[in-house]
């Protein structure tokens, strides 16, 4: 797929996503507000009970900043996981029209996925900026131009890695009647083991070492910790290398599952 076509598809999708403005604002305010309120109350109670200044290396203010960033970054990494994805085309037989087009189906869908990130990016800028102003930069002390520059490729890697895993789960629709449950299961597992639910430093040390070698950390914890300046350059390089290795694994897996699935695709939908 040419870069021009990729950009065109992504732009079209971004426009489509921004056309449902009521949904956007409900989702943005209620979604972020509820998620953040939950975190605030939970950690307020936790810090009050623990009687310590820091839990898992985070003070209360740093913990709040971690969650603000992880909530917003997770939206950008995940994009739209369920709607308009490959499984829908397989179930409804809509894949047919893409198969005869002279372009990559994966490229087309990924372009759509990138376009669908626009609402998440707007929310990230809006709520991130608002928090930065309201908090007076408390908890953001570690953020520098260098950490921002390191975080951007980490977020790009996370988005692509997440998309490839989710793509593979969608493509299982060639065999399974409904892949929704698999996607939800993936979401739960990735949130817990990737640091979107709690910072990974809250897990026992032995478990943290294991998690460093799994793909989940590259999805949420690595970009967020990098942005907040909690990761050294060497640790960032190590994390990115692990993420890239998993990217290769995910790409090979996605390709293999797609090829096998296409061989038995009937094109009539269910």
């Amino acid at each position, binding site marked *: 797929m040419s870069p021009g076509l990729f950009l065109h598809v992504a732009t079209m999708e971004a426009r489509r996503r921004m056309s449902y403005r009521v949904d956007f604002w409900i*989702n943005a305010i209620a979604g972020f507000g*509820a998620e953040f309120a939950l975190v605030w*109350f939970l950690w307020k*109670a*936790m810090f009050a*009970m623990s009687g310590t200044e820091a839990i898992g290396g985070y003070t209360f203010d740093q913990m709040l900043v971690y969650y603000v960033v992880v909530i917003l970054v997770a939206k950008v990494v995940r994009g739209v996981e369920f709607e308009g994805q490959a499984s829908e085309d397989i179930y409804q037989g809509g894949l047919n029209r893409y198969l005869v087009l002279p372009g990559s189906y994966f490229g087309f869908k990924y372009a759509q996925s990138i376009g669908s990130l626009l609402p998440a990016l707007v929310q990230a800028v809006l709520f991130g900026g608002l928090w930065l102003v309201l908090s007076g930069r408390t908890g953001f002390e570690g953020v520098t131009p260098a950490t921002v520059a390191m975080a951007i490729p980490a977020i790009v890697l996370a988005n692509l890695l997440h998309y490839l895993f989710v793509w593979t789960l969608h493509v299982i629709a060639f065999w399974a009647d409904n892949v929704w449950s698999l996607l939800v299961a993936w979401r*739960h597992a990735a949130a*817990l083991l990737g640091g979107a639910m709690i910072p990974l430093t809250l897990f026992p040390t032995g478990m943290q070492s294991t998690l460093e070698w799994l793909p989940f950390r590259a999805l949420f914890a690595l970009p967020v910790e990098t942005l907040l300046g909690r990761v050294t350059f060497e640790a960032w390089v190590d994390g990115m290398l692990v993420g890239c290795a998993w990217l290769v694994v995910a790409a090979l897996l996605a390709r293999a599952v797609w090829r096998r699935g296409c061989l038995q695709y009937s094109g009539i939908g269910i």
Partner: protein
Amino acid sequence: MSRYLVLYLHCLRFSFSRAMEFRVDFFFRVGMDVLWYAVHLVFFWAIYQHAPLLGGWDFDQALVFAAGLFVADAVHMTLFSNNAWMFPLLVNRGDLDYYLVRPVSSLFFLSLREFAANSFLNLVIAVGVLAWALARYPGPLEATAVSVYVALLLLGCFITYCLHFLFMVPVFWMHNAAGLRDTFYGLNRFTARPDAIYTGWVRRVLTTLLPYAILVSFPTRALFESDVGAIAGHMGLVAAALFALLLVAWRRGLRAYSSASS
């Protein structure tokens, strides 16, 4: 009443036969919920590594709370969730007509017509987890207290049903329910933490207007604390108020329903 019971038994039979046609999905759903249970248990385990109490409960009490959450979720998923999910589609496609002309309560039929047989297996597993959490609880638990706990947990499920449908009914006017559905599930996260962590006006809202904080936490408090009467009274009042509100909203919504698809 017996007519409704017979009708519901028919719905059950059809739902089970339909679920068994899609066997892979059946087991995927079971696996998904088991993983969700595991994620919650690991979450509480990790949290309690850093604090002895959360919302006034120790780890053993939090396990009972988490297990109650699994049961409440499984009941909702089994009985109501699919129906609430489908409801906006029926309104937007104009398919609601088929249900309105039947000689039974439309709210009853649309709330319960689809029984999620695959989630039923999860309910069995969730009940097993709850039995395990109660059995391993080191303190004394009387049979009466456990019975009251179960009854209040079921009342919590009824409140969840009312809330879920109240979030869906505006589709009669708004036509697009995606935002409201996301809001319901977004706010539902408040159910998954002990109510005592919420303070101030947020606590007042979460225990009255949007009573997510009482659904599982209040039954658990009734099990471990002494003020059972006040807890049961509070939940009863909230349930009655929400159900009355749902009936009014439903009637008004049906009046606004144009029967044309959009």
